[in-house]
């Protein structure tokens, strides 16, 4: 196999090897806050910084890493009213509508999920953040206005209690 073909093969592959696993474990708590974070990871793993960067870039390309990013703590940032808004929208338009809702600056996550008819008609979830519940209600009305006749029904589910919150555990 030529170098180029091998590279394409690797790019497509979602296989991860022992070094990828070690990288995943080394960054589980986060990226080092130092001017050359990929060099530091390379030193810790006994590989070159170039190899660290190539492996990270490959994992971004094949979706093993969604993105390298910060996760804001909405509550600590003053968004005390967080509501899970759920929407029944036409399946044929869901991609377009999901993108439009996801792009709103007060929506942090927007996902398509399956309906469970007749109990649960909603196929689009959007987490809406506001200073308080009134602001969330107001913003949900703005989404409804944006959807117009494509809003076949919606609700807001506010959380009243955190029953459990533990970090997601990943197999390294």
């Amino acid at each position, binding site marked *: 196999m030529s170098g180029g073909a091998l590279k394409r093969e690797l790019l497509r592959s979602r296989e991860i090897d022992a070094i990828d696993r070690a990288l995943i474990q080394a960054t589980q708590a986060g990226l080092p806050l130092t001017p050359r974070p990929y060099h530091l990871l390379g030193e810790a793993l006994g590989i070159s910084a170039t190899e660290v960067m190539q492996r990270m870039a490959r994992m971004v390309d094949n979706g*093993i890493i969604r993105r390298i990013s910060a996760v804001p*703590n909405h509550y600590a940032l003053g968004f005390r009213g967080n509501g899970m808004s759920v929407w029944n929208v036409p399946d044929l338009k869901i991609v377009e509508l999901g993108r439009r809702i*996801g792009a709103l600056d007060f929506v*942090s996550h927007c996902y398509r999920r399956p309906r469970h008819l007749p109990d649960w008609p909603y196929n689009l979830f959007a987490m809406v*953040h506001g200073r308080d519940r009134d602001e969330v209600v107001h913003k949900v009305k703005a989404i409804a206005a944006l959807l117009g006749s494509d809003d076949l029904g919606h609700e807001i*589910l506010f959380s009243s*209690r955190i029953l459990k919150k533990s970090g997601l555990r990943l197999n390294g």
Partner: protein
Amino acid sequence: MLDSLDRAIINDLQGGFPICERPYAEVAQRLGTEEQELIGRIQQLLDKGLLSRFGPMYHAERLGGGLTLAAMEIPESEFDTVAAQVNAFAEVAHNYQRDHRLNMWFVLATETPQRITEVLAEIEAVTGYPVLNMPKEEEFFIGLRFEA
């Protein structure tokens, strides 16, 4: 309080962070600040809990794991008992009470996709109540934006 640089940092870092020799220097340049200033600010935002994490976000499903959101309708009188039963499963990562007929919503993270179905069945067996499985089918992500 957050100043405009903090807000610009939070907005910027929710997008893609570069993979290069000096990634903080690259981001600092586009935000009009210095590398060390940026690193110090991120550290402070993490220390104050305004950011809960900074780094690669791994895709559990693509690492071979399973992930889903599930909902249950539990009578108020039995709610705490069932919450304890559900929380006892190590695979239950988050669990929230919500003010809706479906009043219990939890995230399940398992080592394999097959385990999702098994654990949901186990939860139904232990609690005696049905579980609605609502796995993510598509993601429309942009992130939260602050006016800087």
